[in-house]
């Protein structure tokens, strides 16, 4: 009897100690993205932006709740959906409740499915999935679920903003659409065709083409077709070296009109374009870097570049992911009850450092924000990319882009 009381007392003591340790424990966020292989530069640059955002926006301000810090735990998924699921399982086994991922919608589909299943089967250790860059529209439409939140504008919203600008540019009469041959490239092309058709029926689409992703050595033949089609503008969703090589080839072979892109900045692309991309490359993105939105934005970028001299703030939405997650955890009063955190994130309004207000649309978990169309240039650049002197300067702004865009999402809420 005596012995068992002693044992019980010890257990209570151990439990309370354990609870104390848990209170001070960090809020861990799993970063699942490519950190090796051909897309490693995008992944590792994203990781430094996360680490900096967690430090500057949360930890330096005293953390969340009663002093819990954010900790980014990197997992290398080699941009493979299969590898991502393994890493997700490892992250869950380590007790991590928040997953961030962005590169490749293929990976995003695999993760969102796996997390949905996991959360249904394991109500005690559910996970939230914060998607910061995978922009396949399906993720917030047919394939949406309560656990997935998207912080970048989806491909349709971006195209909507882009075509708004093209609509007001009367000198564009012929458009050439070219993209990588997979779900995202096809989604961009389909959106471009339907939206241009609706907004500017007089525009002729002189080319609509897909090329193999990551396999084309020389884009010259494509560039020839674009030039000889007489196109006034090119639209492409290309990224990585496909973006750079296509753009360079098109410019070298005599194209002078605008090339509207989704991803032609940072990761060495801006530096490699240099002078040749000036007046040609346009970029649709969220978050305004040049001119800086505010002193706060300028200070943030300066501090980042002081810490990572070779890095770029080329995904400013990462500050929203971290900032909004911290706000939601504080509002929910718990970092472990992800249902409460998810509910707090839904319909949250938040002040983006690099933009105005942003709004997490509750019906599909798509963040609604201002979109910017910028030009690649060396004039009026406060913050360049790749230390090249060149950067993206905002030319047009679309307020709260896609606020009333339709969604087919029918979400089951826990």
């Amino acid at each position, binding site marked *: 009897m005596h012995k068992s009381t002693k044992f019980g007392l010890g257990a209570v003591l151990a439990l309370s100690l354990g609870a104390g340790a848990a209170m001070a424990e960090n809020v861990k966020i799993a970063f699942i993205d490519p950190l090796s292989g051909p897309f*490693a530069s995008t992944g590792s640059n994203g990781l430094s932006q996360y680490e900096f955002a967690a430090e500057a926006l949360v930890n330096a301000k005293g953390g969340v709740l009663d002093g819990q810090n954010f900790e980014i735990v990197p997992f290398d998924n080699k941009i493979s959906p299969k590898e991502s699921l393994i890493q997700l399982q490892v992250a869950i086994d380590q007790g991590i409740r928040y997953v961030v991922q962005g590169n490749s919608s293929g990976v995003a589909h695999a993760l969102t499915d796996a997390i949905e299943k996991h959360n249904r089967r394991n109500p005690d250790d559910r996970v939230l999935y914060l998607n910061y860059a995978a922009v396949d529209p399906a993720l917030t439409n047919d394939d949406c679920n309560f656990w997935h939140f998207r912080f970048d504008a989806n491909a349709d919203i971006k195209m909507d903003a882009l075509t708004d600008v093209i609509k007001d540019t009367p000198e564009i009469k012929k458009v050439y659409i070219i993209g990588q041959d997979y779900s995202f490239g096809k989604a961009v092309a389909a959106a471009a065709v339907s939206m241009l058709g609706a907004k500017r029926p007089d525009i002729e689409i002189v080319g609509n083409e897909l090329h193999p992703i990551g396999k084309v050595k020389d884009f*010259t*033949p494509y560039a020839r077709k674009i030039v000889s089609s007489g196109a006034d503008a090119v639209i492409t969703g290309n990224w990585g*070296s496909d973006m750079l090589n296509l753009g*360079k080839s098109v410019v070298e072979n005599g194209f002078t009109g605008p090339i509207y892109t989704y991803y032609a900045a940072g990761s*060495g692309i801006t530096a490699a374009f240099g002078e040749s991309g000036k007046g040609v490359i346009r970029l649709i993105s969220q978050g305004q870097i040049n001119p800086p939105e505010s002193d706060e934005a300028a200070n943030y970028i300066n501090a980042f570049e002081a810490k990572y001299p070779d890095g770029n703030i080329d995904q400013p939405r990462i500050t929203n992911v971290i900032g909004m997650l911290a706000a939601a955890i504080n509002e929910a009063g718990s970092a472990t009850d992800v249902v409460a955190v998810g509910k707090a994130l839904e319909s949250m309004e938040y002040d983006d450092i690099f933009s105005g207000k942003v709004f997490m649309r509750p019906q599909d978990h798509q963040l609604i924000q201002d979109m910017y169309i910028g030009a690649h240039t060396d004039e009026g650049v406060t913050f360049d990319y790749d230390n090249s002197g060149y950067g993206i300067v905002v030319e047009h702004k679309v307020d709260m882009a896609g606020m009333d865009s339709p969604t087919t999402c029918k979400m089951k809420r826990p």
Partner: protein
Amino acid sequence: MDLILVNLIDGLVTGLLLFMLSAGLTLIFSMMGVLNFAHASFYMLGAYFAYQISMVLGFWMGLLIAPVIVGVLGALVERYGLRRVHQYGHVPELIFTFGLALLIEEVVQFIWGKDQMPYSIPEVLNFTALSIAGNAIPAYKVFMIFTSVAIFIALLYVLTRTRVGMIIQAALSYPRTVEALGHNVPLVFMGVFGVGTALAGVAGVIAGPVLSTFPGMAVVLGSIVFVTIVIGGLGSLWGALVASLLIGWITTFAKAYNIRMEDILTGIGFEKPLEMSENVFRDLWTITSPQIADILPYLLMVLILVVRPYGLFGKRDA
């Protein structure tokens, strides 16, 4: 018509670039009987070295110095790596070059990082040389053509008209006899390996600014170089040239013209199914030539191997 001329020139540029890579590889193969998997990595090294040198001394010094450094590196690899592995047979040699390719890629990433390098065309050549029906031919392309043709002629001259060339050719076929005649055959091998890798280096130097300099550039070109020398016939310089040009033109024309499988199939008498979305052959019907342009050389290789296993100009089985 004008566009055909433009595409011929574009294909020529692609083909000649491929030739500079495959010439070295095919020589090395006929010498050592082993495929050098790291060959395209030397091409990548050429581009990175030239970029680094061009930062300080300008593009032209890069063009001169970088291939020499690459060639010396190649010779050292042969002398202290391959030659030691050689005695254990072909498989260890293959594995050695394969490992070397991975190693070079990692080292490049370690030193220069994973980003694209801003290695660009020199100012002097950054203009439009001529324009055909609104299609600009950049001066740099003309420069690429002349450089590669000059290298081909020089190589051909050395191999067929000089004493050194004779010894090399003899050493390729009958190394023991040549050795018995008092020539230093291992030195010849080292020299050929060095020159072969230096050629790959030159290709890297002049291709870097147009095809962009990044850690994946070796992988992108790696497999197509092997296809070229198999089509041309292993060990044949002329074969490498013809196969390179053939591949250059095939891929360029396939990309430039939208030939649709639908037209070909209906042309030879097939009926297009009305309900396409449910059809088993849907993918076949919707193929266009730009989509499969980069696979065509592999198809050609399979055909060549079936019809003529020793390649177009080869003298022995692949």
